[in-house]
């Protein structure tokens, strides 16, 4: 099968793991005489529109099936429908959700969902005694991050405690020191804060430094979306409470192999959606995760 799969920026640590899954799955596809074309966004400035454009680019390459995250459904649905009308099958992964897949007529949905993932984080925080969490948003204005923070707030609210957003200006994005100092200043300015939630593994590194600086390692707990080795080591050392895991490698691997099976042999999963998360990585399962993390799979 000729498969097109659309994904996030190539230097995005999270998508690098998805890409690894895709690469591994490509071996299978090629063994079956097919091809895989991975089309990546180059920026996240106009994520929905750019993804829609990539769907059309994939259409122009006469592929059999397209796997795409539905980040901004309002924006992308039109392109996805156009692909289906042109006789190209579609599989949603990473973002969008099972309902959306059913609505559009996509084969399946593989991945987790931002809002429930955030929600799970909120609940976990609340269960571990956090009463006032900040959700550090380094990309204010981007819909999927807003969803994470909203989910977090709602998950905490269910337990009667609060979370709020800390939006950072664009000039801080990618500057770990600026992110750390912003969090530190906020922690110093408000003693009621007892939890920090970072939206990416790199921001978690900064957040940890901020807590250390503010002298609040004991009074503030850290949680994050996604993880890197430094983060996993913190969890192992009990310096970070948890990380929300979406198992990106599985998302990429399954999206491609399922697409291949569907086109070549009409195979399809009976389960829909196929949820790869949210899983919580904490002290209970850290060792296995760490081993996978060091090889770039977790």
């Amino acid at each position: 099968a000729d498969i097109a799969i659309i994904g996030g920026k190539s230097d995005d640590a999270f998508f690098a793991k998805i890409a690894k899954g895709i690469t591994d799955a490509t071996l299978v596809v090629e063994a079956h005489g097919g091809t895989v074309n991975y089309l990546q966004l180059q920026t996240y400035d106009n994520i929905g529109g750019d993804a829609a454009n990539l769907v059309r680019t994939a259409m122009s390459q006469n592929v059999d099936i397209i796997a795409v995250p539905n980040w901004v459904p309002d924006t992308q649905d039109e392109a996805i429908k156009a692909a289906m009308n042109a006789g190209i099958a579609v599989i949603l992964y990473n973002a969008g959700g099972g309902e959306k897949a059913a609505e559009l007529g996509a084969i399946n949905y593989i991945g987790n969902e931002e809002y429930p993932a955030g929600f799970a984080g909120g609940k976990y925080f609340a269960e571990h005694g956090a009463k006032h969490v900040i959700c550090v948003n380094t990309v204010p204005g981007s819909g999927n991050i807003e969803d994470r923070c909203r989910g977090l707030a709602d998950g905490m609210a269910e337990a009667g405690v609060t979370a709020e957003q800390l939006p950072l200006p664009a000039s801080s994005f990618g500057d770990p020191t600026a992110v750390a100092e912003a969090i530190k200043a906020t922690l110093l300015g408000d003693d009621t804060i007892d939890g920090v939630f970072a939206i990416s593994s790199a921001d978690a590194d900064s957040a940890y430094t901020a807590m250390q600086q503010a002298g609040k390692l004991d009074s503030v707990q850290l949680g994050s979306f996604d993880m890197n080795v430094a983060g996993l080591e913190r969890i192992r050392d009990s310096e970070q409470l948890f990380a929300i895991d979406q198992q990106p490698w599985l998302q990429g691997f399954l999206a491609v192999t399922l697409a291949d099976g569907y086109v070549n042999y009409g195979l399809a999963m009976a389960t829909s959606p196929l949820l790869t998360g949210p899983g919580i990585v904490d002290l209970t399962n850290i060792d296995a995760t760490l081993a996978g993390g060091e090889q770039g799979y977790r």
Partner: protein
Amino acid sequence: MTNLSIGNLLRRPEAGAFLGMLAVILFFLVFGGVNFLKPAGIASWLNVAANIGIIAIPVGLLMIAGELDISIGSMIPAGSMIVAILSGHYELPMWISILAVLGFGAIIGTINGLLVVRTAVPSLIVTLGTLFAVAGMVLGLSVLITGTTSVAIKAPALYKAIFGQFIGGTYQVLILWWVAVSVVSVFYVHYTKYGNWIFALGGDRESARNAGIPTTRVTITLFILSACSASFVGMCQAILFNSAQVSAGMSYIFNVIISVVVGGVVLTGGFGSVVGIVFGTITFAVVNQGIYFTGFDRNWSSLIIGVMLLAAVLMNNTFRHMALNYAPKKK
């Protein structure tokens, strides 16, 4: 005295940009296969080019006049958000939103222009200030008004047909707008006196003023055009994609400036052409999108983009050099 000699052609500012464009198209034809030039493949880079191109032309003219405008980076989401909030959230008629979008562009353009003209603060810094200020305003107001940072909008069919639709299911209607903007600009820049004023402004502002050119008026007009073009593109994106997000389009700033400079405009002003900017935009879009048609490992795509851009500009530059040194050969 033959006006069509090779020399005369090479002397044109767009000659280098044209050759650079040909070179990258050839490159991707060889490595990406013929899909790349089939109608659907063309759409994949033409759509991208149109979005950049509409902004690149006024920004390029500003650069020819010796100024930079980076506030476009937040004018795009501003345009999206204005139309989404007014017509999506408040459900006002579309024409009001359109007027508001262009009006906001005119206001910010005027502020940029006035600050640049009156204070002698470099335009990079002035527009950087408005870049942040507008981004902050859009974010703050969206959260205040709608409570979120991403608003849905369903434009009526008529407006969708004019501003945001796919022609034949593949080509954005924005391409037609781009063609229109290009044609009008070519006319005004290369065939009327106003174009002459822009070049003079960039060549030597003091002398241009001494020559009687209303430098203040020209500068402000150009800033208004560039701010309006950015908010217009933002509006069309919101209509096309049925939703608007506030996150600032920093990458647009880079992409537009790259397109303009690859198109042969001199960064310090005084030299360039509209057609060159169009070629530069296409070159950039082709380099950016062509990679999807090739089999190269995606992890190396940035490397290829960087090298291709450098190669295109080097080629371009060689020709500009020849152009500047060229004079009809004496027998």
